[in-house]
C-alpha cells in the first residue's frame, strides 16, 4: 500500500516516470495463503504487519502484493506451522534479510536513542516549562505593581532632591 501512496507523492513531486513502475493495486494476503488454524493465521497476520517488504518502499508484507512479499508471508506461515514461536520467526527473518526487514526497530545499540528521544524530550520540555511557569508565578507573588531595584533607586534619588 505504501508503494502506492509513495507513487502518488512521487508523481506529484516529479518522479512520475519512475513511480509508474512501482504502482499497482495491492491484494496483499491471497485466499490460498490463509492457514486453516485461525489462531495460527492471526499470529501470522500480526507478524507480517511488522515485517517490511524488502523490494517495496515502506510497505509491510501484509499490505504488499509484490511476489517477494508473498514469498515472505508464506515463509512466515511455514515457520509457524513448523512450531516456531513469534520471536523465532522474527529472528529467522532478520537472519535472512537483515534488520532492515523490521518495521518496528529494535532497542539495541544506538536505537535506544530513537526510542528514548520522546520521553527524554518530554522531561526536558516539562522541566523548562515548569521553571518558566514558576518565574511567572513568582512575578505574581512579588506583585506586578512593585518597583524594581533600579526604579527604587531612581525614586529615592528624586525624593532626596
Amino acid at each position: 500500500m505504501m508503494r502506492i501512496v509513495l507513487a502518488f507523492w512521487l508523481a506529484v513531486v516529479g518522479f512520475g516516470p519512475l513511480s509508474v513502475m512501482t504502482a499497482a493495486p495491492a491484494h496483499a494476503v491471497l485466499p490460498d495463503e490463509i492457514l486453516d488454524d485461525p489462531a495460527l493465521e492471526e499470529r501470522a497476520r500480526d507478524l507480517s504487519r511488522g515485517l517490511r517488504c524488502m523490494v517495496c518502499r515502506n510497505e509491510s508484507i501484509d499490505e504488499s502484493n509484490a511476489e517477494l512479499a508473498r514469498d515472505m508471508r508464506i515463509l512466515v506461515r511455514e515457520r509457524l506451522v513448523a512450531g516456531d514461536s513469534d520471536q523465532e520467526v522474527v529472528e529467522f527473518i532478520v537472519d535472512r534479510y537483515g534488520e532492515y526487514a523490521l518495521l518496528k526497530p529494535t532497542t539495541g545499540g544506538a536505537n535506544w536513542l530513537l526510542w528514548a528521544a520522546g520521553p527524554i524530550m518530554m522531561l526536558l520540555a516539562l522541566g523548562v516549562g515548569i521553571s518558566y511557569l514558576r518565574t511567572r508565578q513568582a512575578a505574581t507573588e512579588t506583585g506586578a505593581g512593585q518597583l524594581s531595584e533600579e526604579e527604587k533607586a531612581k525614586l529615592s534619588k528624586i525624593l532626596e532632591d
Partner: protein
Amino acid sequence: MIVELGHFALILAFLVACLQAVVPLIGAHKRWPGWMAMAEPAANAQFMLTAFSFGALTYAFVTSDFSVALVVQNSHSLKPMIYKISGVWGNHEGSMLLWVLILTLFGAMAAWFGGNLPPTLKARVLAVQSSVAVAFFAFIIFTSNPFLRMAVPPFDGQDLNPLLQDPGLAFHPPFLYLGYVGLSLAFSFAVAALIEGRVDAAWGRWVRPWTLLAWVNLTVGIGLGSWWAYYELGWGGFWFWDPVENASFMPWLLAAALLHSSIVVEKRESLKSWTILLAILAFGFSLIGTFIVRSGVITSVHAFANDPERGVFILMILGFFMGGALTLFAARASSMEAKGVFSLVSRESALVMNNILLAVSCFVVFIGTIWPLVAEMLFDRKLSVGPPFFDMAFTPFMVVLGAILPIGAMMPWKRAEIGRSLRPLIPAFILALSVALLAFALQTGRSAMGPVGLFLGTWLISGSVVDIWSRTGRGAVAGRLGRLTRLPRADWGKSVAHAGLGVTMLGISGVLAWQQEDIRVVQFNEPFDVAGFTLTLTDVQRVEGPNYISTMGWVDLARGDTAITTLNPEKRFYPVAEMPTTEAAIDIGFWRDVYVVIGDPQADGGWAIRTYYKPLANWIWGGTILMALGGMLSISDRRFRVAAGATRREPTAGVPAE
C-alpha cells in the same frame, strides 16, 4: 506564444520579488515612506504576474499543447477536463508553480488586509515574505522550469498517473500547499517582529488569523489525502506514517501549537519568544517537508534521488532561512520580556502544556522520520522505522493531550482553581467513562485501545459542549440558549474544533479496534456472511470508461432478509500508463462502512473478494471537517475583522475592549 508569455511573466515576477525583498527593508530601516510604500504594489504585481504564469501553464494543459514537455509527460487528450486541470499540479514543476502562486497570494493578502499594521512592520513583513518568494522563484527558474518546449512534439501525451485521476486527489495538493505556504506568513511576521524588536498583543492578534488559515487548509489537505488512501488503496488504511505523510503532519502539529500560543501572546502578552520560535520552526518544518518530498533522500532505497541538484537547492533555501531566522532569534529574543503574570494553575499553564505536548509529539515524528538516515550515516545500520514505532511512541502524547484538553479549556486566565474548573465537567467525565465501560463490556476482544479511544473521544465532545454552555453564564435555560447564539465566533470555533478532535479520535479507535476483515474465493450466487451482513456476488463484467477498461463486480449487500444495496467494486486498467488501479465499493453508513474489493479471477471460476466491516470509519473525516470548520469560525471572529487592531498604540482605531 501564451506559454512563452507565461515563462516571461514568471521571470518578471522573480525580478519584482528581488526588488520587494530589499527596497522596503531599507525603507523601514531609514524611515523613508516612499521606499516602504513600494512593498504594496510590488506584492500585487508579483501575485498577478505569477497568476498569469500559472494561467498560461493551465492553458497549455487544457488545450493539450503537446509541444510543452510537461504537458506531454503528464497529460493525454482523452483525459476528462478536471484531470487535465489537476494535471497542472500533478507533477514536480507545476506543483512548484502552484506553490509560489500561493506564496505570492499570501503576500498580496498581507498587503490587502494589512491596512492597520504599523508601516514599518508591514514593509518588513512584505519584504521577508518576498525573500522567501525569491528563493522559490529561483528554484523554479533554474532547476524546475515548467515551460520547456519539446523539439519534436509527439501526437499525444503519456497521461497522468491514473492514481491521481481521482476527485479526492485533484484538490488534495492545493489545500496542502495553502497550509504549508500559509505558514510562510507567520514566519514573515515573526522575522519582521524580530527585526522590529517588538512583539505585543497586537502582533499576536495579527499573526493568529494567518496561522489559523494555514492550519485549516493543512487540516483539509491532510484529511483529503487520508480519505483518498482509504477508498482508493484497496484495504481501507487511512494513515501510514510514511515520510511524506509525516512531512505534512509535522507542520500541522506545530501550527496547532502556534495558534494556541499566539492566543497567550494576544491576551496575556506572555510566551512571546516561544511563539516567535514556533512560527519560525513551523515554516521550517514546511521546508523540511518540501525537502523530504522532493529530494527523495529519506525514502531513497532505490535510485530515486534522481535529481540531487533540486535537493541541494532546497537544502540551501532551508539552511538560509532557518539559519538566518534562528540567528536573529538568538540575538533578539531576550529583549522580549513577558508582561502577564499568572499562577501555576491557569489557562496560560494549560496552553503551555498543550504546546509542550504538540511540540514534543512533532519531535517524535521528526526523529522517527529521519532515523533511518541517521542510523545509516552515523552507525552504518540499514534499518526501518515503520508504523509500529510511531503508534507506540506518538500515541501516548495524544492520549495525554485528549485527557487534559477539556480541563484546560475550562480554566480561566491568570489564576484558576482545579476544583472549580473540574466541577462542571463531572457529567462529561461520567458520560465518557460509561461509554468506555460499556464498550469494554460488550467487546469480545481483549484490547484496551477501543475503550480508551471511546473515552477520550466522548470526553472531548461532551467537554466541548460543557465549555460552550458554561460561556452563557447563569440564569434560566431559555436566556442561556439565547446567549448561545450571541457568543463570539471564536468561542464557537474553539468548541467545534475541540469536539472535532474528539470525533476523529472516536473514528480512529473504532476502526482500529473493531474492524473485521474477510478474504475468500467467492462463487457466483453463493452468499457469504461478514460481521452480520450477507454478501452475494451476482455478476462480473467488463466495462469501458473514458480512458480506462474496468472489471466491475456486482455484489448484493443485505442484513438478514432486508436488501441494503448493490455494490460495484472495480479493477481498472489504464492502457496509456499501463497501470491498474483498485476502486473499492463502499456502503457508507453513519455507524459503519462496508467495504468490498474485487481481486483476481480464480482457476475454479470464482473471484477473490475482500470484505471489510469498518465501524465509525467516517467519523475520522467528519472530525477533520469539524476541526477545519472550527478554525474557520475562529478566523471569522469579529475582533479579527473589525481591526487586527493595535488597540494599545492607536486607541483611535476604536476597537471594542475584550
